[in-house]
């Protein structure tokens, strides 16, 4: 398999991100205009100077016209991108390849989702017409099966595991409380998590990411042009993607304690970026904490902890804001919220702020390592897609 990567050939030179939340007063167009405007200003470019656009949205609109219309783009190449919850990252990946290829000089990735107009609880995806035999289970239910499987395999009893999962939720809310753009900005306690109503299996409301409206955007250029736009570009070291075959669900060999698609995406990204010891080489990581057991398993899939040990590391504070490897310093999906099309780009936005020393002082982490990772997944255990990126402020 040839996945050569485009290490240090593309840089992010401007970004924008709206607050995420229940924006009853903002439609999709408002979110797009706000995030895009911030990104244009951040890079110091106009919409006409951007040569090509990739627009990520899972279910808020079809065709590139959904972006072209609110921004009033005239005959620009505008492509709508969708890949479940990795949609925002996929928009960036496409934009990066576009400038790396030399076809365009400046490209932009915008991710946006308007979830709160439906009136329904949780995320819903009305699929195409079918024979009626497909699963109707929520994502929460599918991911809830990870917790007992992990506990069973690694000898972590139910109560201990509950504490581990609660600690993850508490950490992410602690971080989100220090982030003015986050949906939920109050710290919570372990008791809050334990007492919240059960949604699926042993997962309660506080084990599940918030559903929110929001948008984020990034502008990319070739690395050699980056300093024209900003003093501190974010160089892209790795972009990887892995789509599973979906057969994990019917494969008796799958044990629900890991996500092979995430392992594969991470391995490819580390190879592209030349990372051999992520826990020690990264300054921070943004990961897809759609549910608390998901973040737990990702610590092992991404190589931050050895198999079967992530639960101990969580309890030891390894991934806390000022721990050895801060995970989700911006609050993650859990506390920042999850507008599907925007989330991947929101993760880049936190790397952008943190690595440039521009995060709020209460959550600024030590970035002397100068490297950050974003991880995004979509789908369900056994039937997943995954994205991993590595970005850094130093061009090797």
């Amino acid at each position, binding site marked *: 398999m040839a996945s050569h990567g485009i290490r240090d050939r593309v840089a992010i030179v401007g970004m924008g991100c709206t607050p995420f939340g229940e924006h009853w007063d903002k439609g999709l167009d408002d979110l797009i205009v706000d995030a895009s405007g911030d990104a244009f200003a951040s890079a110091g470019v106009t919409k006409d100077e951007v040569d090509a656009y990739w627009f990520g949205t899972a279910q808020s609109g079809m065709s590139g016209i959904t972006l072209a219309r609110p921004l009033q783009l005239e005959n620009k190449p505008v492509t709508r991108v969708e890949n479940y919850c990795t949609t925002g990252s996929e928009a960036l990946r496409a934009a990066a390849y576009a400038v790396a290829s030399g076809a365009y000089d400046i490209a932009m990735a915008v991710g946006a989702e308007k979830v709160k107009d439906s009136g329904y*609880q949780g995320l819903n995806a009305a699929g195409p017409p079918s024979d009626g035999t497909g699963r109707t289970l929520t994502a929460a239910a599918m991911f809830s099966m990870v917790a007992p499987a992990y506990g069973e395999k690694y000898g972590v009893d139910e109560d201990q595991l509950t504490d581990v999962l609660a600690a993850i939720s508490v950490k992410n809310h602690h971080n989100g409380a220090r982030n003015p753009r986050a949906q939920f900005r109050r710290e919570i306690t372990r008791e809050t998590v334990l007492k919240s109503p059960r949604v*699926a299996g042993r997962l309660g409301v506080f084990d599940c990411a918030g559903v929110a409206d929001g948008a984020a955007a990034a502008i990319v250029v070739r690395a050699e042009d980056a300093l024209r736009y900003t003093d501190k570009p974010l160089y892209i070291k790795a972009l990887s993607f892995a789509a599973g075959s979906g057969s994990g669900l019917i494969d008796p060999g799958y044990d*629900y304690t890991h996500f092979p698609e995430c392992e594969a995406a991470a391995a490819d990204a580390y190879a592209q970026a030349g990372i051999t010891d992520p826990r020690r080489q990264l300054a921070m990581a943004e990961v897809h904490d759609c549910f608390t057991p998901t973040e737990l398993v990702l610590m092992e899939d991404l190589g931050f902890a050895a198999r079967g040990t992530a639960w101990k590391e969580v309890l030891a504070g390894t991934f806390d804001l000022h721990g050895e490897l801060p995970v989700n310093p911006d609050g993650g999906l859990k506390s920042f919220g999850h507008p599907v099309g925007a989330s991947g780009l929101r993760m880049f936005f936190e790397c952008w702020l943190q690595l440039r020393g521009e995060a709020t002082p209460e959550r600024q982490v030590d970035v002397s390592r100068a490297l950050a990772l974003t991880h995004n997944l979509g789908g369900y255990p056994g039937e997943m897609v995954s994205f991993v990126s590595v970005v850094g402020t130093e061009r090797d």
Partner: protein
Amino acid sequence: MSAGGYVPRARLQRSEVTTFLGSGGGKGARAVASHDEDTTTMGVEAARNALRAAPAAALGALWFATASPAYLDKTNATTVHAALRLPGDVSALDFGGALRSGMGALSTALAGTTTTLVVMADQRDGLPGGADESAGGDGAAALIVGPDGPGAPVIAQYLGGASATDEFLDRWRAPGERRSKAWEERFGETRYVPLGLDVWSRALKDAGVEAGDVDHLVVTGMHTRAVKALAARLVKAGVRAEVAADDLAATVGQAGTAHPGLVLASVLESAGPGEVVAVVHLADGADAVVLRATGAMAAWAPARPVAAQVEAGAPLPYGKFLAWRGMLSPEPPRRPEPQRVSAPAAWRSEDWKFGFVGSRDRTSGALHMPPARVSMQGGAVDDMEPAVMADRVGTVVTFTVDRLAYSPSPPIVFAVVDFDGGGRFPVELTDVDADAIRIGDRVEMTFRRLYSADGIHDYFWKARPAESSPAPAPQS
């Protein structure tokens, strides 16, 4: 040649009605179909039981009778046909709409020469606190009727029968109504008893037996007083008092169209060779059939005895009963309702959707559910053979309870099941309490109705706890 009964799991204790409403109810319990069952799905379960007890039976036709059809216009028997994976040249017909139709289908089949699978099913409703609500029952029965076949001998020989028809209004229901109405009972009683006596004497003559020869007497009908009065008169007319069969009124209830078949199936399970079984059914007239168990009865055993199913009931709170029956409309979760099934998609996956047939890759042996063209092991293309999974037993590997997803009766209980002999499928569980499932539990597949949208019923399979059937030893 075979018989099978199906009694759904849920039981409404009649005393609960009295406690809740202050009136109505009664003694004993009635069987209640699950929210995901209907007459078609119950018919399928009864038919599976009958076929499992005589797998070599070569069917020529399938007839389905119910007073509560899932569809009008569309034949319900074809759904049963698809779930049983019957060949296309076996005709599937509905005997529609009346409480007489099940018995009528049976007696017609007995007088014919084609091997026919006669399936009857019913769901009986009534207004809260009323007699019909308590006395009614849900259930199904299936009888394979035909001449001796290779590997499928006749277990009860048809000796003779009789029929009487008279137009009088006893019980009626307008299309679309859930509850039926009845004229005052004494009128119906004065009509039914003479009709019953008439068919009785003609049937005995046709069969060449005397009243005293009868070893099992089954008298059924929705008019309880007439049934009791006729049974008493038959004893006076020479039937031995002790041969009256348990009519399941106290444990299942009156299962309408299905009832004569259900009680007959129950009787056949305990009949010995040479014993005479007589069935009289009172509905818009009267029908009687007389059978004698043959020597082959000694070697025949039911796949799942009615008595065992009656025993395996689980209590259903009255509030849930009312919600399932649409008498109460509880607040649904704030989730979109499901889309209607696509007809072409359902037809393309007919074997999977109705028959639970997956595919096995010939090279790797990997089982694919749903069936696939490209193997998940080794990648071979179009090298699959059908794998019938409907009759496999499996083990729960992991499970969860989804309190948020749309369901006609939340929460959804969901398990990943590994089947004996290979294959894994994540599937919804039914007939379980959410608190009672454990990893390692044994489950079997059952045909159910997932939901209805735009009047289209979404039929598919779920897993339910299996009768004790231990897991095979792990293979090395």
